[in-house]
């Protein structure tokens, strides 16, 4: 049996009030959602290790990522024309409002912060359900979004708000899709939240709208967040091949696209940790085959495009597509390598430490090896068994792999290995700086798009800039007065040696 995502003691901690049935959180029996997840995981990974691919945060550890709510919000928020309503006291939304750099090519509603802002009286009197319904009405009247996603959080799940029922009622009353996303933080890690979000899409969104123009070249991209607009580096390539992205979930998605995603012929799974269950279920329900791929790195990008074409052809697209892909790959690869040559001699042999999660751990490793850099270590936290296998194949040395670690451990490791640069997320940026190691953001707050061929060139450029910034020299050196006098600094600065002749000479 797979690992349970809800810890028993958390369930026991619920108050003994008479509460309505909340699917997905009922314990100690496993809920339907968890069963689905367990099944999905087991089928995909088929190893006993799979139990650990989706683990809970360890107690007292500050190093872990966000909670289940955070995970759910991250996955769904990039759907741009949806109003994301957080049913909670202010903190959940207040602290996470607009904290990801996903990019939208159109609607900006997703960046507006909606919350029911529950206060003590709402919670004590149980008025929160009514408040939720009212909030949904106000959103509908004020913003008329394509849909409203309602997030259940610790407080509302603890007091037993029946969000399902409220959403159902609201959807009927206001004639708008209202999707419950039950993601209490105590449910588990951020990763669990990711999957909860996937389940919510499966249960309430995908398949609810019929596409009037399904075609043999329609695909879904799953687990692509369009951070810094990086999916837009890939889209033109797909366009050139005549492949239509029916739905990119969730990056720059529209509700209707997601709702009709079941009519695609094939899917690419980008961040498998986040949405593997979604891919698996879509394959089961609608016969949409998928593969796991990455747009980071030149060969990964080529491989991904090739696999997309193969799946489409298998599903009935014209086999000429395979030739088109090869022609495009050859052309794009050549161009990218040409551009990368400029960086190769500046970066070759430079040593990199990666501290990022999930899919990026192996796909970036691959990309960096491609430009001749040496990997000192990479984190495999939040990576699936498959991710890990891939890394092992590439690095051929398991010592380079490490699990999630506390800041102090990471610091010690950086001090020991002294890599030339660390690539990570914002949370460990400052650990790198304290260890005097150049740092580049490759996570959600990054400012540059790294996907595809153009993205790889950009990554190389940014690594080059970061490594060669003059501030590192200052960072590594002690203050000059703490150095030995032997440093090449004349005792008397030359600026002393001047005369008044200058004052009269050379005026303009």
């Amino acid at each position, binding site marked *: 049996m797979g690992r349970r995502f809800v810890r028993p003691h958390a369930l026991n901690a619920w108050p003994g009030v008479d509460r309505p049935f909340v699917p997905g959180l009922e314990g100690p029996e496993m809920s339907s959602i968890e069963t689905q997840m367990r099944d999905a995981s087991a089928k995909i990974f088929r190893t006993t290790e799979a139990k650990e691919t989706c683990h809970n945060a360890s107690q007292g550890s500050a190093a872990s990522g966000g909670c289940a709510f955070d995970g759910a919000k991250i996955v769904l928020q990039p759907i741009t024309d949806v109003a994301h309503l957080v049913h909670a006291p202010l903190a959940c939304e207040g602290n996470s*409002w*607009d*904290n990801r*750099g996903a*990019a*939208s*090519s159109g609607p*900006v509603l997703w960046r507006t912060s909606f919350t029911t802002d529950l206060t003590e009286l709402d919670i004590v009197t149980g008025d929160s359900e009514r408040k939720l319904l009212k909030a949904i009405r106000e959103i509908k009247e004020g913003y008329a979004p394509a849909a409203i996603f309602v997030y259940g959080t610790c407080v509302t799940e603890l007091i037993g708000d029946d969000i399902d029922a409220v959403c159902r009622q609201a959807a009927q009353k206001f004639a708008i899709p209202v999707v419950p996303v039950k993601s209490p933080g105590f449910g588990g890690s951020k990763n669990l939240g990711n999957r909860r979000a996937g389940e919510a899409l499966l249960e309430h969104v995908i398949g609810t709208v019929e596409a009037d123009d399904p075609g043999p070249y329609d695909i879904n991209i799953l687990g692509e967040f369009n951070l*810094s*607009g990086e999916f837009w580096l890939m889209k033109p390539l797909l366009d050139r091949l005549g492949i239509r992205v029916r739905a990119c979930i969730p990056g720059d998605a529209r509700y209707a696209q997601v709702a009709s995603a079941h009519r695609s012929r094939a899917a690419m799974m980008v961040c498998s940790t986040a949405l593997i269950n979604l891919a698996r279920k879509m394959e089961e329900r609608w016969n949409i085959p998928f593969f796991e791929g990455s747009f980071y790195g030149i060969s990964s990008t080529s491989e991904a495009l090739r696999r997309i074409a193969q799946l489409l052809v298998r599903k009935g697209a014209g086999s000429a597509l395979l030739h088109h892909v090869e022609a495009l790959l050859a052309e794009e690869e050549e161009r990218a390598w040409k551009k990368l040559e400029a960086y190769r001699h500046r970066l070759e042999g430079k040593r990199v430490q990666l501290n990022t999660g999930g899919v990026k751990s192996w796909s970036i490793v691959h990309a960096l090896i491609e430009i001749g850099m040496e990997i000192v270590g990479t984190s495999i936290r939040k990576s699936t068994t498959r991710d890990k296998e891939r890394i092992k194949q590439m690095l051929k040395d398991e010592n380079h792999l490490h699990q999630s670690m506390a800041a102090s451990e990471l610091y010690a490791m950086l001090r020991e290995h002294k890599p030339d640069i660390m690539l990570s997320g*914002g949370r460990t*940026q*400052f650990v790198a*700086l304290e260890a005097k190691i150049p740092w*580049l*953001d490759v996570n959600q*707050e990054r*400012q540059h798009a790294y996907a595809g061929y153009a993205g790889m060139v950009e990554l190389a450029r*940014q690594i080059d*800039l*970061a490594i*060669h*910034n*003059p*501030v*590192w020299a*200052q*960072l590594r050196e002690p*203050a*000059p*007065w*703490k150095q030995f006098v032997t440093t090449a600094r004349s*005792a008397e*600065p030359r*600026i*002393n040696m*001047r*005369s*008044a002749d*200058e*004052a009269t*000479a*050379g*005026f*303009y």
Partner: protein
Amino acid sequence: MPQSAEKVLDHVPLFCEPEYEKMFARKKLKFECPHPDKVVEAQYEFTWTWEYREKNLAREALVVNPAKACQPLGAVFAAAGFERTMSFVHGSQGCVAYYRSHLSRHFKEPSSAVSSSMTEDAAVFGGLKNMIDGLANTYQLYDPKMIAVSTTCMAEVIGDDLHGFIENAKNEGSVPADFDVPFAHTPAFVGSHVDGYDSMVKGILENFWKSTERVPTPALINIIPGFDGFCVGNNREIKRLLDTMGVTYVFIQDASDQFDTPSDGEYRMYDGGTKIEDVKVAKHAEATISLQHYNTRKTLDYCRELGQTTASFHYPLGIGGTDEFLMKISELSKREIPESIDRDRGRLIDAMADSQSWLHGKKYGIYGDPDFVYSMARFVMETGGHPTHCLATNGTAAWEAEMKELLASSPFGGGAQVWAGKDLWAMRSLLLTEPVDLLIGNSYGKYLERDTDTPLVRLTFPIFDRHHHHRFPLMGYQGGLRLLTVILDKIFDELDQETMWEGVSYDLTR
């Protein structure tokens, strides 16, 4: 009607009303005899070309928008840094009004200076009578401890002899014989405000030092800041650093209080400044340190003649600039640089590292006084930026050589150009033909910002159209933080403006 008593419009919206627009258009057509729009447009586009740039840079006689001021302005500023000192500018009155408004508009503080108000008869017969009456009035009306005399061009052209005139005035009883009236000849047709500053400070030192015997005092250090629009913040920061190190020093010419008086109901014509007693003591110092080399060349020569050790810096800011300054202070004062300053330094480096990706590879146009441009270029390179255009209208050949040496010392100086003696109209061509990401200068840069679409960071005197920047230091590590913040703010503001309506990259976290 565009204007009504119920809702009186400010000039900003008022002149955009259709009535005014129409009036302006009519006036232009009927009275301004304008060139056709097409011709104007073509000429405008011509100014963007390399061809125009060549012609522009080849200008020999005409100066357009110079980035410098005249000697007496520097002298008036210098005098404001001494205890109860009234600036007395011998010459025509209008000049003095300029210095006062210039300083007032920058510091947002009253600025007092008097003039001998020479008129036509004085020009013909000499200004002795003006000096005699002027000194007497100044002494009686404003109760100064010292009157610092400088000159305008008018007095210099007719050749008035300050030394003789002041003697005569004292003999006539304008001021008591032992009253201090230091002076400096400050013709505007030589050099710039930095030289006027130099002459005035030297004049004041000579006045107090000439008749005493020097008794060298080990480890006593004089600091001369130079002409600095940020003196309010900078002087206080420099003094804080020196106090933290436990250095014994005389801060010669400290205008930080004069140009930052509190509003408590009392009008202070004089506030703060270097005590006259301290100026006298300063002669015995072991060393005199100038924070701005090109502001103190004559003064330091004089100090050396007296046997003092001297050292000069270029507006010490950023990491390297501050390091050198502190180490020199440490060496001369025999005081260790304490841990707290070490931490300040570490914090600045930390901040620079935090923001490095935003500054890396940015190109800058920098103009201002020679020392300022030098240190800014150096700081920019410390952050991984390129000081593409370094321009000082009052820069000398020596400055140019020194700049080139600085640029050659860093890979980020490659391709950077030094423009000594060029004006802001030249900068316009430079920015149009070789664009940069940021322009560092003063308020006058706003026209360049408009014409060339280069974001302007106001970091040097004069800043008329923004308030209170001068209250924060630029020098030292603390100043470095301020500098970093101001530059980053501009970059982020620009980025937000750029992305605000397109929306995609209008990010909360940057």
